């Protein structure tokens, strides 16, 4: 078979697919972070831990209650979202009048507690989660083999990302959210209950993380460390895309996943740091991020 730039196409497309999968998770997670940051001005360091909990809830539903993947896909984001609502109501909401740093420190501490607790009970070796029957197998596309589950993850996250983008940028509810992000006092003075909106936004943002956790469970192992590994890259994605920009988070997440994949093909040594190199360059040239607005 022909080669592309000296690389067999199976290798190239295989890595691109892997990049696209990673990019889907970056996009889902950075989207939630962007929504939360926009509304709450909190850098949610607990995001990776809540993603991990999303995956664990799916695993627990399966092993303890016998509820499979499709149940988990609905229930797990709901449970993680409610956990987020409880965290926001009882803790985060007390910090809004203080500096941003306090929100960051609180969520960082919460992340350590959550991860520590899961490590204590489940250890660090991952738990396997089976691919649902309906998505087993794969397609031979000629130039590469596409496992059905991976195709599903890419399509599902694209649908969720652009659905969220549409809801925020093109609907009435989204207009409230954007307005409250800009000037919460005035939106409140129009008769909208902004504190409830803030709580719901946090719940929604972390539910996205929980959903990403369920999608990830059959691909990566369900492990207490899965969030930590991912979240550092996701923060870099958010910085590159621009804090609080919805479209920026989605496009940058997917783009950087692909870039990582390409780097693995052409210069594997750099694949772990390429995202951070891009971050450094973007910060030098456009400190507000590629899609960010200067505040």
């Amino acid at each position: 078979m022909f080669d592309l730039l000296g690389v067999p196409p199976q290798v190239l497309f295989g890595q691109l697919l892997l990049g696209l999968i990673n990019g889907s998770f970056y996009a889902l997670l950075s989207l939630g972070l962007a929504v939360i940051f926009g509304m709450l001005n909190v850098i949610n360091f607990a995001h990776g831990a809540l993603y991990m909990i999303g995956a664990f809830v799916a695993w627990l539903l399966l092993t303890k209650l016998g509820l499979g993947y499709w149940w988990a896909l609905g229930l797990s984001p709901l449970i993680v979202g409610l956990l987020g609502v409880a965290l926001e109501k009882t803790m985060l909401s007390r910090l809004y009048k203080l500096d941003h740093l306090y929100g960051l420190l609180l969520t960082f501490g919460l992340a350590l507690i959550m991860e520590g607790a899961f490590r204590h009970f489940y250890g660090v070796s991952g738990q396997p989660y089976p691919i649902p029957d309906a998505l087993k197998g794969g397609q031979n596309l000629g130039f590469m083999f596409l496992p059905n589950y991976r195709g599903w993850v890419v399509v599902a996250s694209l649908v969720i990302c652009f659905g969220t983008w549409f809801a925020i940028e093109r609907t009435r509810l989204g207009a409230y959210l954007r307005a409250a992000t800009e000037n919460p006092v005035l939106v409140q003075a129009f008769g909208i209950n902004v504190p409830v909106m803030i709580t719901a936004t946090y719940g929604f943002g972390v539910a996205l993380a929980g959903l990403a956790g369920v999608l990830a469970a059959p691909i990566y192992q369900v492990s207490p460390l899965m969030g930590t590994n991912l979240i550092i890259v996701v923060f870099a994605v958010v910085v590159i895309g621009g804090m609080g920009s919805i479209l920026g988070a989605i496009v940058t997440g997917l783009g950087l996943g692909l870039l990582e994949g390409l780097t693995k093909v052409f210069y594997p040594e750099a694949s772990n740091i390429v995202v951070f190199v891009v971050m450094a360059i973007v910060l030098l040239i456009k400190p507000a991020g590629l899609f960010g607005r200067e505040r």
Partner: protein
Amino acid sequence: MPDGANVKTAMLEIRDLQAFYGESHVLHGVNIDVRQGEVVTLLGRNGAGKTTTMRSIMGIVGKRNGSIRFQGKELIGMAQHKIPRLGIGYVPEERGIFASLSVDENLMLPPVVKSGGMTVPQIYELFPNLQGRGSTQGTRLSGGEQQMLAIGRILRTGADLILLDEPTEGLAPVIIEQIGVAVRKLKQRGFTIVLVEQNFRFAATIADRHYVMEEGHVVDMIPNDQLAQNMDKLHTYLGV
């Protein structure tokens, strides 16, 4: 016989209002009455407490005591987001047009709180400049158009008391004229309006009564028809 029995009670009744921003005590016992259908202005120098009085009505100051009654309901202690739902519309000094929303989205943003609000075509009739600008980003409008949008979006909600904070600030005379025409039309439609103004000549063309504020108090109340006799006094108050 209680002699107040046939006197129309005030729509808005402010008694001994104190307001604070953090440690600083801004309002020291403000008393104001606004009757249904009236246009009342708050005059005074910068820092006299006019804007703070409005913000106190909306519940968006740090802390407030005393009493603010709207149609008999006490606003102090009420949840912030419930106050506008009683039918009070607020047009802030900085206009508050949202940059991330289009003109249409800005116009449709405040929820309708009562029936009987103006329709979008009626708002366009009042402010023809806004027509056809729906998809423009809100803050791309000129200052005057932003002011019209800020007033227009409140008219949709059905609010019957409108708080207008310095609607003419920084606008060209021809635009001020247009805003004045619009406010007079609103008065004819039966809206009750509280207006903060530095531009006293503008205020004189539309108001029924003027409250003069100084250092967090109301120091005088001048009916518009007695304005001529009180000119000297007013000049002293306003330092013009």
